[in-house]
């Protein structure tokens, strides 16, 4: 009962600011509304007992990504202080497409027999995540870090070329 109530409250916390993100006429407000959305998702992670992922969610998404988005908006000329329209004349088409997608997703969710994994959740997931990342998932982990490194170098090259 309590878990269900928490789920609905967290869903509201996630969804209401998400609506603000896509409808607000002020782009900085849109970016700031991302923060409560991320916190709602963090709450859902905690509800699923994934406390390490929840901590990372706050640190990376709410603390870093949002700040980067804000940073970019504020450094862009004319990015702040103007009223923008987030929608154009294709609203009905977009609404139709998303309604169809939502219906499809709900239909799939209802029909899929969700498998219950064997065994219990480990008491302390952070250590498990670390062990998995550096043993059976080591290739994926290294390739991901390589991709990040390449994008880092790419960003520097693009930024430097302007001189």
């Amino acid at each position: 009962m309590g878990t269900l109530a928490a789920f609905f409250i967290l869903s509201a916390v996630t969804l209401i600011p998400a609506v603000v993100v896509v409808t607000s006429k002020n782009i900085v407000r849109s970016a700031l509304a991302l923060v409560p959305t991320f916190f709602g998702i963090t709450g859902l992670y905690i509800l699923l007992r994934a406390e390490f992922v929840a901590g990372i969610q706050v640190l990376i998404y709410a603390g870093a990504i949002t700040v980067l988005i804000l940073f970019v908006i504020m450094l862009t000329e004319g990015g702040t202080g103007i009223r923008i329209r987030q929608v154009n004349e294709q609203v009905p088409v977009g609404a139709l497409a998303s309604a169809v997608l939502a219906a499809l997703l709900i239909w799939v969710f209802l029909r899929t027999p969700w498998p219950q994994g064997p065994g219990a959740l480990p008491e302390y997931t952070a250590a498990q995540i670390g062990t998995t990342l550096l043993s059976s998932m080591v290739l994926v982990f290294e390739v991901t870090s390589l991709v990040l490194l390449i994008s880092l170098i790419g960003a520097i090259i693009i930024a430097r070329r302007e001189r």
Partner: protein
Amino acid sequence: MNWGAEIAKAVLAAVGMFTFLAIVAAMFGVLLERKIGGWIQSRLGPKHVGPQGLLQTLADTLKLLQKEHITPRAADAVVFNTAPLVVATAGLMGWLVIPFGTLGGTVLVVRDLNIGILFFAAMASMTVIGILAGGWSSNNKYSLLGALRSASQMISYELPLGMALVAVAMEAGTLSTVGIVRAQDGWMGSFIFRQFPAFVIFLVAATAEVNRVPFDLPEAESELVAGYLSEYSGMRFSLFMLGEYAEMFAMAAMTTTLFLGGWKGPLLPPLVWFFLKMYLVVFFMMWVRWTFPRFRLDQLLSLCWKVLLPAGLIWILISGYRITF
């Protein structure tokens, strides 16, 4: 689980923590700052209100409480009025995982989270949002400049801070703050000895993270008026200050927990030891503030990216090698 009791407990803990911090960190901290500053600069500091000026900050707080809230006409009112709350809340949340000591076998900590130091880092990173929002919504170029400086500074210094936390977590084998204190056995067991580079990196990054001199570019009085604080008045201004001092004291408490053995120490009770060590770190930060001049922005960022970050990475490698083999 009894939800009503849990929520009541959370509210009580929050109120207790808030009062404690408002008194110990903000009021007493500001007084300490001014007294130490006076002492270092050979002047007396606050002297007139109460015995030896002890009640000066109380008088200042009462004055600030009575001030009018001014919202500039060009400001984005909703964001402008929310930003101080974000900073204050983020400053206070970090205290949830700080273990103050032991009392008859139980550890005095609001919640011993098993992701303790990760939670702490996450909450420290939330301050930037409040500062950016406050600086932008003021609609004032000095505020915006201060906010942007603060964002670039705090995002950069979060990385070495995280590196130091990782090194300590590796040494202790846990992310829980209570576990880290327990892992520091004996007098020489404090991580300041085994993790000295991490200690230096953490202290420098923590000073930068709480925007203190020599890293106080976001609010540099002489060039930016007061940075993101320019347009704030009355209690909203003091909420920013409360958040800032709460975070500074939280960083000092975290340094105590991670490197100085937390509440451990001979003879004296654990609580006394904890506060002794914490105030020692606070004193050190204030000493630095009144001694060093301010960095330039490029010096600040190159110190982070070219010195602290590589040093942190190399230290993690060395620690890992030592722990594994």
